[in-house]
């Protein structure tokens, strides 16, 4: 510490206080060493690809460049070309609608299921929880595979059941052949996989709702519906909003489900969502510039959607 003051008076002037923090500014380098490996891993496998994508999205990068031609800088031409094509906007519209429908259906069913978990006796709840965990634990690829088998047009159990119930027209019905029923099947699969997470999270939040308050409300003549809207929902709202946000983010990026369903001979062009569209553009048609441009669009969209979630976590973290 360098003291320049010669006067004996102890005035808490700004200068000494800044001097006092000086030793602390010589920070311990150890934490930086500790995070360094993770930062390097993220830089190598995430930041670098993103950077590569930004550069490539502004270059002419197709088959010819694969074989050694220089990739010429074309500015925003890729963006203009992609974003003025009807293809992309059809896919974007489809993805957004699909994402919202799936997220909302998942959320509503999840909340109803959480309420059901609260209403049934303990043994039934435990059985249901295990069943939900089972569905949740199934690896995505295995789950989609099983559902494809169940919806198989020839010997699938769904068609068999429908025919047994008297709907003869479902004998040999190809569910994945037309876009609308393709997306219906995709929605069933995604809801099946996602509802357990929502239901169990919301149920955990429901156990925090005060029974005393609910009792008082019902004594004062509140109906069950009123209790739900006015007491239960406000209590579980933080959890519900986070879960909903996560569903939107996850449902926007469904790739594996759609890709695997398309393998069964669905019309690819009419069933593409953003993920499979990028795949087709990049891996299929080798238009890396265009694929990079669409990818960055999806990345930007994800970051915008993610921000409320991150802010929420940070707020929670401080509390």
């Amino acid at each position, binding site marked *: 510490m360098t003291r320049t003051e010669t006067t004996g008076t102890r005035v808490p002037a700004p200068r000494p206080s800044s001097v006092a923090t000086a030793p602390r500014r010589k920070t311990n380098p150890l934490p930086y060493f500790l*995070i360094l490996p993770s930062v390097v891993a993220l830089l190598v496998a995430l930041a670098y690809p993103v950077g590569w994508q930004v550069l490539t999205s502004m270059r002419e990068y197709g088959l010819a460049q694969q074989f050694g031609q220089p990739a010429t800088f074309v500015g925003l031409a890729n963006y203009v070309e992609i974003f003025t094509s009807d293809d992309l906007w059809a896919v974007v519209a489809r993805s957004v609608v699909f994402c919202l429908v799936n997220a909302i259906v998942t959320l509503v069913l999840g909340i109803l299921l959480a309420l059901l978990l609260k209403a049934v006796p303990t043994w039934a709840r435990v059985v249901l929880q295990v069943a939900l*965990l089972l*569905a949740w634990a199934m690896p995505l690829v295995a789950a989609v595979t099983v559902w494809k088998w169940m919806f198989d047009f020839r010997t699938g159990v769904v068609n068999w059941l429908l025919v047994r119930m008297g709907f003869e027209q479902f004998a040999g019905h190809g569910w994945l052949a037309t876009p609308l029923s393709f997306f219906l099947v995709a929605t069933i699969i995604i809801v099946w996989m996602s509802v357990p997470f929502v239901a169990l999270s919301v149920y955990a939040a429901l156990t925090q709702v005060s029974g005393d308050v609910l009792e008082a409300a019902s004594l004062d003549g509140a109906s069950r519906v009123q209790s739900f809207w006015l007491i239960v929902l406000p209590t579980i709202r933080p959890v519900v909003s986070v879960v909903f946000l996560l569903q939107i983010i996850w449902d926007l990026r469904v790739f594996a489900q759609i890709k695997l369903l398309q393998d069964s001979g669905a019309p690819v062009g009419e069933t593409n969502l953003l993920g499979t569209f990028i795949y087709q553009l990049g891996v299929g048609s080798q238009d890396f510039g265009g694929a990079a441009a669409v990818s960055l669009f999806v990345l930007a969209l994800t970051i915008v959607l993610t921000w409320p979630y991150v802010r929420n976590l940070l707020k929670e973290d401080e509390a």
Partner: protein
Amino acid sequence: MTVVESPGVHAELGARPLSAAPVRARKRGGARRRVGDVVYGALAVVVFVFSVFPVYWMLNTSFLPNRLIRGSDLHFFPTPDVFTLDNYRTAIFDESRSAFIPALWNSLGVAAITVVVAMALGFVASLALTRFSFKGKRTFIVLILVVQMLPGEALFVSIFRIIDSWQMLNTIIGLSIVNIAAVVPFTIWTLRGFVNGVPAELEEAAMIDGCSRAGAFWRITFPLLAPGLVATGVFALIQAWNEFVIALIIMQRPESMTLPVWLRTFQQATQATNWGAMMAGATLIAVPVVIFFLLVNNKMTGGLVSGAVKG
């Protein structure tokens, strides 16, 4: 972590606010409540069947002989007279597709490398976030939260090109590098929660008693962390084992496929799908995951809401 399950009192009482209401009210509502119970019971059965049926159907089909699977009548149980392991034999040893055993080794290799490296990186980084304060800490936290939401689906073109330029297409190391980056943010965030759960005062007390800082950590905090480390490691393992999107792109050669990609080869445009063998394959992939998941789930339920795994 917002979600804490509190079993017991709430679970028993909270479910039925009406049950605590005066007797008169209960009498009047009696019939309606019985109807309600029936409705709840029916809904519970529907939910149960909907959740469990696909898993049951996968197991059932995997144990049935092909003539019954293709037949016009369905068999809902592999009774001893028809029970067979042929599908497993076909799935594992059939020569006409890419083989199971190499895919198993690839999957195990990728999962092992990913878990070991991601846990090591995540562990030291979580120490920095919990036991130190440093400039840029908050930025780093925001960064890992944002980064773990980035979809691999939007990056696979560049990842493919980069891995290609490193001559690492179809290699376990190449896929592991990508997986590590995908899993590390999650391990940092989750381990940070677990380390925070061990009070630093315990270490300080040990240091007053003459332990070095590292010694205090190693002897006091580390043993207390073991369950959290195991749970996080298992979840990282599941993620690496299940990874499909990137593996689909960079592990295209038959001998370098991982199990999820391998399962996809059962369905080919040119021939009828062998559903029995495909279900056997799906079972082989799913069983270890389901067991692990059920084992560690208790520890993770709270963390999952804030940790955002499983896309």
